[in-house]
């Protein structure tokens, strides 16, 4: 669900096919009938953007029929915890949770806390009335100021009206099968079938897994999509067990790595939060705010100081607070789309783009291209000349006259990059496996690895600033920046960098083997605490390539998984509270009377007995009881209800996409109130939604996606002859019904338009697209692959040009999986006429909209 496994991860899909052949039920729930659906036992079509309704319905089905895995839920989740009476649910507030502040358009998340305690998140900060952001929300494992691991008030019977279990029950009680069918456009029978199969395949003897991808994340309420699945998996006892869990099918070779060792604004390696400008006076406040007294986040200080030692070496000392005062501060949001806004306003002067193609790959591509034309200088690093490098002479805006080459001030450097075969390094795959790839050949001419580029750029800058006494240059001059290099081009030694990431003991120089060894006294170096041990014993553990036939099915000696080479996180949950496997069939990790043992590295202290109870005053992991597997959480349990860490509510609620032809039949709050919008931005106009005039100008739902034959924005596939010929043209997928209604001809051309842009595509009329009846109204969905741009072996219009840039409030991700559009036969207008056409349609819509403006709680929509 929310993914297209067979098409976008074909080789990973071999395991699904094998499971199917062994009798597993494979269900694909997706707006389109894809190559994955074709392989599934069952395909359920649903309306793009209605997944929480569907999943919430499953939660309700489980709870109403008492089908949850009781023992698991009682001991391993926070179901028994009683919530503070400041919490009020969407059921009471018609689509809002308590704590909504219309002024800030944000929640005061302190009103969702456990009863009887000041909620206290870990890696994050929550002054100024907002909680931890971005990935902390997902990974921070926010905890509470628990005196020991147990929350103050619980009801083991799960009957207290304010215990999580009962709150959950009430929250989803209206997500009935009939309502789900109405809202998602599926049949009641199909919905029930999914519920029954999930339940039938969960419990002691069996486990079920969810596989999602950006079909879930790319929504204005994306994080909550995944949260809903998490609730189901907790209720059914599918977390921390073999064959269970929720698998994120990530789309780039090292997209996992680039969040673990982030090229993201709000975190440092290992999901340590960046200090915020508005908050944190000094180092101790920061430590205090980020260190959870209980759970593994209790060692935040050790992780932090080890990182500072890796960054600044001997320049970071206890006396200078490990240079804390000198560190750059972030704002609530400095994410890519915020940068875009700044760029359009001319506030960003320089932009370095390495291995990404925002001119095609990001929502509202036009805005990105116009923004590039506002830069003073731009550096693009790639193997081929991508649209982001060529925007100044061949972007669509040149054709429409919105840009004129001679008037673009941007100075552009295109630097050819080295391919994966031309450099050493590690990718972190979707299962958290660090896999090393060795260099095969030398890069030619000017081609260089990004390791080379950033190392030598840093070296030059440090040289230029070496003499500077300026305060602003103090930090860069304190950077530890010596790495051995090899070959004539002076390529930095990637393994030396990996060694720094893994860390060592300063006095002895001994390579660390696990994050447990990290110290908070500055005696250890570690560039990323969760990667600690990847260079244990001075051996590149990520480069281990022991054939799978020479080891167990878990293959622990192939590459290295973070943390501590653990293949399944929280695997203590694969045993019951007493430490016995839930069943023989599903045994994985168990307590043998003296220690934890099994197929995998236990995600628990090896000798902590199941009956261990933390003494008062216990800290960090000692404060976690022996029957609480979720050791990153302050209370050791998985969270059905998230008291801390999310921007938009402790429980997922169904909200319509930012742009939707339908109203929210559950709450008068139509869409996620906390979503980020560029309300007054002329560069990101919105389509009217149901209930507003002009909504019928953009009556259809569209969703964007990838094809097996191409890769993301096309830089790595439109440049390859053998791939270009397999999918040689941009096309749209429509149902025969829509084709008839809109007069579209199979094999002909169609023009698809939104308030942002209009693109053209070849028409593929197919039964695989089905009209859906939603809230008694028929809706059509249009499928648009987003690989194309103006250049390379196969070129075409970019689907992302159609998209708006409203974002999820937690992770600042746009909603490319569900928005509205109009469609008409024929090719789009050319030249200036194109811009005029888009404006004309927009005027049509907005003139009618302004008369019947829709006002929702917490948001007044303008364009």
């Amino acid at each position, binding site marked *: 669900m929310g993914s297209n496994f067979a098409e976008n*991860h074909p080789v990973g899909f071999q395991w699904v096919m094998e499971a199917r052949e062994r009798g597993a039920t494979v269900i694909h729930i997706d707006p389109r009938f894809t190559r994955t659906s074709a392989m599934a036992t069952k395909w359920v079509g649903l309306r793009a953007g209605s997944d929480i309704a569907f999943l919430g319905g499953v939660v309700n089905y489980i709870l109403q029929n008492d089908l949850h895995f009781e023992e698991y839920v009682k001991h391993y989740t926070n179901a028994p915890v009683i919530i503070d009476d400041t919490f009020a649910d969407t059921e009471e507030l018609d689509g809002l949770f308590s704590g909504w502040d219309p002024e800030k358009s944000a929640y005061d998340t302190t009103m969702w806390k456990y009863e009887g305690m000041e909620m206290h998140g870990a890696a994050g900060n929550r002054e100024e009335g907002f909680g931890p952001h971005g990935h902390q929300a997902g990974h921070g494992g926010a905890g509470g100021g628990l005196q020991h691991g147990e929350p103050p008030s619980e009801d083991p019977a799960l009957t207290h009206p304010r215990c999580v279990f009962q709150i959950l029950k009430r929250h989803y009680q209206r997500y009935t099968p009939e309502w789900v069918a109405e809202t998602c456009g599926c049949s009641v029978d199909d919905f029930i079938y999914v519920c029954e199969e999930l339940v039938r395949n969960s419990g002691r003897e069996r486990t079920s897994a969810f596989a999602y991808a950006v079909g879930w994340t790319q929504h204005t309420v994306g994080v909550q999509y995944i949260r809903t699945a998490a609730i189901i998996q907790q209720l059914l006892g599918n977390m921390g067990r073999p064959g269970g869990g929720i698998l994120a099918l990530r789309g780039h070779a090292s997209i996992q790595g680039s969040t673990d060792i982030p*090229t993201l604004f709000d975190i440092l390696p290992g999901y340590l939060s960046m200090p915020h400008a508005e908050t944190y006076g000094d180092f101790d406040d920061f430590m205090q705010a980020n260190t959870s007294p209980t759970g593994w986040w209790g060692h935040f200080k050790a992780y932090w100081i080890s990182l500072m030692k890796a960054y600044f070496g001997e320049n970071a000392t206890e006396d200078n607070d490990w240079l804390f005062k000198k560190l750059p501060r972030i704002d609530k949001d400095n994410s890519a789309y915020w940068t875009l806004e700044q760029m359009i306003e001319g506030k960003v002067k320089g932009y370095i783009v*390495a291995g990404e193609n925002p001119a095609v790959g990001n929502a509202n591509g036009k805005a990105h291209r116009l923004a590039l034309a506002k830069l003073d200088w731009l550096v693009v690093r790639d193997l081929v000349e991508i649209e982001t490098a060529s925007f100044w002479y061949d972007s669509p805006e040149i054709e429409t006259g919105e840009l004129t080459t001679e008037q673009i001030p941007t100075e552009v450097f295109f630097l050819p990059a080295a391919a994966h075969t031309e450099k050493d390094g590690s*990718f972190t795959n979707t299962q958290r496996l660090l896999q090393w790839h*060795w260099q095969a050949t030398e890069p030619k001419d*000017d081609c260089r690895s990004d390791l080379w580029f950033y190392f030598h750029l840093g070296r030059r800058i440090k040289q230029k600033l070496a003499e500077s006494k300026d305060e602003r240059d103090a930090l860069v001059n304190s950077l530890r920046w010596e790495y051995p290099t090899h070959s004539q081009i002076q390529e930095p030694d990637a393994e030396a960098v990996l060694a720094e990431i893994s860390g060592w003991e300063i006095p002895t120089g001994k390579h660390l083997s696990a994050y447990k060894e990290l110290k908070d006294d500055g005696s250890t170096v570690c560039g990323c605490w969760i990667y600690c041990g990847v260079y244990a014993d001075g051996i590149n553990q990520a480069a281990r390539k022991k054939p799978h036939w020479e080891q167990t099915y878990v293959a622990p000696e192939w590459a290295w998984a973070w943390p501590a080479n653990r293949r399944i996180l929280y695997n203590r949950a694969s045993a019951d509270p007493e430490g016995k496997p839930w069943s023989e069939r599903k045994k994985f990790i168990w307590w043998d009377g003296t220690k934890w043992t099994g197929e995998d590295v236990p995600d628990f202290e090896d000798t902590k007995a199941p009956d261990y109870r933390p003494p008062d005053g216990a800290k960090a992991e000692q404060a976690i009881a022996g029957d609480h597997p979720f050791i990153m959480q302050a209370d050791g349990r998985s969270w059905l209800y998230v008291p801390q860490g999310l921007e938009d509510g402790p429980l997922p609620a169904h909200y319509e996409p930012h742009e939707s032809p339908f109203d929210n039949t559950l709450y008068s709050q139509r869409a996620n109130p906390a979503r980020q919008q560029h309300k007054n931005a002329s560069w990101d106009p919105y389509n009217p939604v149901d209930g507003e005039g002009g909504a019928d100008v953009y009556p259809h739902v569209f969703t964007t996606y990838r094809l097996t034959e191409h890769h993301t924005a096309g830089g790595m596939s439109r440049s390859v002859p053998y791939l270009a010929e397999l999918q040689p043209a941009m096309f749209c997928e429509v149902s025969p019904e829509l084709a008839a209604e809109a007069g579209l001809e199979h094999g002909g051309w169609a023009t698809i338009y939104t308030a942002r842009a209009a693109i053209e595509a070849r028409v593929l009329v197919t039964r695989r697209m089905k009209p859906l009846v939603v809230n008694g109204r028929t809706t059509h969905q249009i499928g648009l692959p987003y690989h194309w741009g103006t250049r390379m072996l196969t070129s075409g219009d970019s689907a992302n040009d159609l998209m708006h840039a409203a974002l999820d409030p937690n992770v600042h991700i746009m909603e490319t999986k569900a928005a509205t559009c109009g469609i008409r036969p024929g090719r789009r207008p050319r030249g200036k006429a194109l811009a005029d056409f888009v404006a004309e349609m927009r005027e049509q819509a907005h003139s009618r909209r302004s008369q019947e403006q829709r006002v929702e709680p917490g948001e007044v929509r303008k364009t």
Partner: protein
Amino acid sequence: MKLGETIASWPVLRQFREGDLLGLGQSVQSRRSKTLKPRIDEADHVVQSICPYCAVGCGQLVYVKDGEVTHIEGDPASPISRGRLCPKGQASKSYVQSPLREYTVKYRRPYATTWEELDLETAMDMIADRVVETRAAHWQQATDKGDPANRTLAIANLGGATLDNEENYLIKKLCVGLGIVQVENQARI
């Protein structure tokens, strides 16, 4: 080759000599067919690599001869992919040897209408200067409230999901040092 051999190797004669009267089999095998060898057996060395496309992380074997990649195929040893690859992974060699691949620096002056050549060293030095100057011109030492800011909001860095962990590590480390906070990658899109 001697005339005698030429005649002896005439398939018509071999047909009868080798009893392959219909001339459908071995007797008509050509010299090339007889001496054929798979080019992966002629490689100077083989390197274990990982597919650069999606995050499944399939194992690849990269075959090299005379400093050039001659073939890329799946690595059977991988417990993830068991030697299999999808069309993209299978096309990796065509990707690293793409006809569109650029090998030299390209430079566009402000307001210019064409690319010009630029040598790598100069380019690196110019970029370093741009960073230093922009930082100096747009440095924010403290917030309006007087709290430390230590940053510039005038420079941004994008990309990383297709890069190595080691590369991302240096990017983040350098940007922290430089006070560049707008560091982002595909994880956001």
